[in-house]
C-alpha cells in the first residue's frame, strides 16, 4: 500500500477508536455520581415509587456495562431513545435541530473563512505596522469577550438601536432561503467574530512561519513586490497549515454555536442540549453530547488527513 494511504487509513482508524472511546466517556460522565442518578434527577422530594419507575425507565437496575452497550447499539441504528421530559423520540427532534445548527454553522463558515485568510494576509503584508496592530488589537478584544456577551452587544446596537436585523433568530421550514438568511444575520455575525479572531491569528502565524524560509528571501532579493511574494511563494506553501487552521476553527465553531443559539433563541441543537441539561434529561444530553463530540472529532480528523495529503515529503517513499 502507498505510504500516504497507510497514514490516512491509520488516522481514520484512530478517529473511529477515539469516537468509540468518547462515547464511553460521555456515558461514564453521566454515571459519575456516587449516588443515584434517578434521585438527582427527581430531587429530594421524590417518592419511592416514582424513583423506582424512573430507575426502570432508565434501565438503572441493570449493570452499567450492559446499559452502555445497549445504548451504543441502538444509537448506531439511529434509535436514540425517548426524552424523559416529554416522551418524544430524540432522534426525530434532534435531526430537525441538527439541520438548523449546521445551516447556522455553514453560514458562519462561508463568511469567516475567506475573511480570516484575507485579514491574515494583510496582517503579514503590513507586519508590525498599523494595519497589523489594529487587526491584532481588535481580535484580542473579541477573544476576551465571551460569545454570549458579544451576542448581546450586537443585539443591542444593531437590532434594537439601529433596527437592521431581528434580535431573535426564529426560523422554520416554511421560510424562504432569503428570509432564513436575514433571520440568522446576527448569530452569524457573532460566530464570525469569535472564530475570525482565532482563525486570523493562526493564519498569520502560519504564513509568518513560511515567510521566514530561504526561498522567500530569494524572491524578495530578486525584486518581487511584497504582495507578489505572498501570492506566488508564501501562499501555496502555507495552504496546508491554513486548511488545518480552518478545520480546527470549524470544530471550534460547532461548540460556539451552543451559546449563540441560546442568546438568539435559535431552534438548534445547542439550545436543545442546554434546555435538557437544566431539566436533567439524561438520554437527550447523552445523544447531543455524542453528536457534538462526533462532529468535533470528525473535523479534527479531516484537518489531520488534509495535512498528511498536503505534505509532499510523504508522497515519495524513500
Amino acid at each position, binding site marked *: 500500500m502507498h505510504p500516504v494511504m497507510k497514514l490516512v487509513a491509520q488516522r481514520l482508524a484512530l478517529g473511529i477508536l477515539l469516537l468509540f472511546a468518547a462515547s464511553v466517556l460521555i456515558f461514564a460522565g453521566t454515571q459519575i455520581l456516587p449516588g443515584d442518578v434517578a434521585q438527582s434527577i427527581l430531587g429530594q422530594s421524590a417518592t419511592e415509587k416514582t424513583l423506582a419507575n424512573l430507575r426502570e425507565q432508565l434501565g438503572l437496575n441493570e449493570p452499567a456495562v450492559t446499559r452502555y452497550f445497549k445504548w451504543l447499539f441502538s444509537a448506531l441504528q439511529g434509535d436514540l431513545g425517548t426524552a424523559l421530559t416529554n416522551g418524544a423520540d430524540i432522534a426525530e427532534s434532534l435531526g430537525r435541530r441538527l439541520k438548523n445548527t449546521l445551516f447556522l454553522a455553514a453560514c458562519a463558515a462561508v463568511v469567516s473563512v475567506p475573511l480570516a485568510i484575507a485579514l491574515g494576509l494583510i496582517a503579514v503584508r503590513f507586519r508590525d505596522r498599523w494595519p497589523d496592530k489594529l487587526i491584532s488589537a481588535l481580535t484580542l478584544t473579541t477573544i476576551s469577550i465571551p460569545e454570549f456577551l458579544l451576542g448581546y452587544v450586537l*443585539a443591542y446596537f444593531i437590532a434594537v438601536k439601529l433596527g437592521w436585523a431581528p434580535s431573535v433568530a426564529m426560523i422554520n421550514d416554511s421560510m424562504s432561503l432569503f428570509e432564513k438568511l436575514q433571520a440568522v444575520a446576527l448569530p452569524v455575525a457573532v460566530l464570525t467574530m469569535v472564530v475570525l479572531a482565532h482563525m486570523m491569528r493562526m493564519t498569520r502565524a502560519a504564513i509568518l512561519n513560511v515567510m521566514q524560509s530561504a526561498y522567500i528571501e530569494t524572491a524578495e532579493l530578486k525584486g518581487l513586490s511584497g504582495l507578489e511574494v505572498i501570492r506566488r511563494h508564501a501562499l501555496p506553501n502555507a495552504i496546508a497549515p491554513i486548511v488545518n487552521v480552518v478545520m480546527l476553527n470549524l470544530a471550534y465553531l460547532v461548540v460556539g454555536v451552543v451559546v449563540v443559539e441560546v442568546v438568539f433563541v435559535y431552534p438548534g441543537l445547542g439550545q436543545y442540549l442546554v434546555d435538557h441539561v437544566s431539566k436533567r434529561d439524561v438520554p437527550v444530553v447523552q445523544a447531543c453530547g455524542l453528536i457534538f463530540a462526533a462532529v468535533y472529532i470528525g473535523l479534527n480528523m479531516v484537518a489531520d488527513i488534509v495535512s498528511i495529503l498536503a505534505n509532499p515529503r510523504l508522497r515519495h517513499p524513500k
Partner: protein
Amino acid sequence: MMRIPPAAAIGLFFTGLYFFIAVFAPWIAPYGMTEVVGDVWEPASRAHWLGTDSIGRDLLTRMIYGGRTTIFIATAATAISFVTGAILGFTAAVIGGWADQILSRLVDLIMSIPTLIFALVVLSVMPVNTLTLLLVMGFLDATRVYRLSRAVAVDINVMDYVEAARLRGEGRGWVIFREILPNALSPLVAEMGMRFIFMVLFVSTLSFLGLGVQPPEADWGGIVKENKDGIIYGIPAALVPAVAIATLAISVNLVADWILTRTTSLKGGRG
C-alpha cells in the same frame, strides 16, 4: 527599581483593582447584594451609578459582588487545574513508560470532546453548587496544564542536574518538587494568566446558561442572564458585565505577556 512597560503597568493596575474590589466587596459596595433599592431598570443616576437591575437591585453593587464570585471561582479553579495538571504532568514525565502512556492517552481522549459539551454532560447529573462547578472546571482544564507541564518536564528531566540528583539517590518526590518544579515555573506562570482568563469566560458562560452560580448569588454571567430581557427594550444593563469581563481579560493578558517576555529574556532565551 525595575522598569515596567506602560502596557504591563495598565494591565497590572486593572488586575490589581479588580482583585482589590473582589476581596473588599462588602466594604466597597454601596448597597446590600440582594437589597431591592428602586424601580426595575432605573437609568444611571447619582444614587445608582449604573442604574438598577431586573428586580430593582443596585447594579453597581451586583457587579461588585458578581466580580467577587467570578474572580473567586476562576482563581480557585485555576489553582485546582494547575495543582492536578502540573503534578500529573511532572509525574508522567519522570516515571515515563506505561504510566506516561496511560495518562497521556486519557488526556487526549478527554480533550477530544469539546470542554463545554463535556461540562454540560457532567453537570446534567451533578448537583449544581460551587464545589461541583470548581471541580468540573478545574479537572477539565487540568488536561491542558498536563500537556504543557509534561512537555516542559520531559525537557528538564534529561538535564545533568536531574541526573545528578538521581545518582545521589534522591527519590521521585525530590526530583519532581526540588529539581523540575523550580525550573518549569516560568512557562507555567505565563500559562496561568491564559488559564485564568479561560476560567473567567468559562464560568460566565456556564452561569449564563443557568448551570453555574445559582441565584440570589450572582457572577458576571449570571447578571447577563438576569438582565438579558431588557435588551429588546433598549436597556443596556446586560452589557455592563461585557465591559468588566473584557477589561479583566485584556489586563490579565497584558500582565501574562509581560511576565513571559521578562522571564525568557532573563534566561537570554527567545525574546
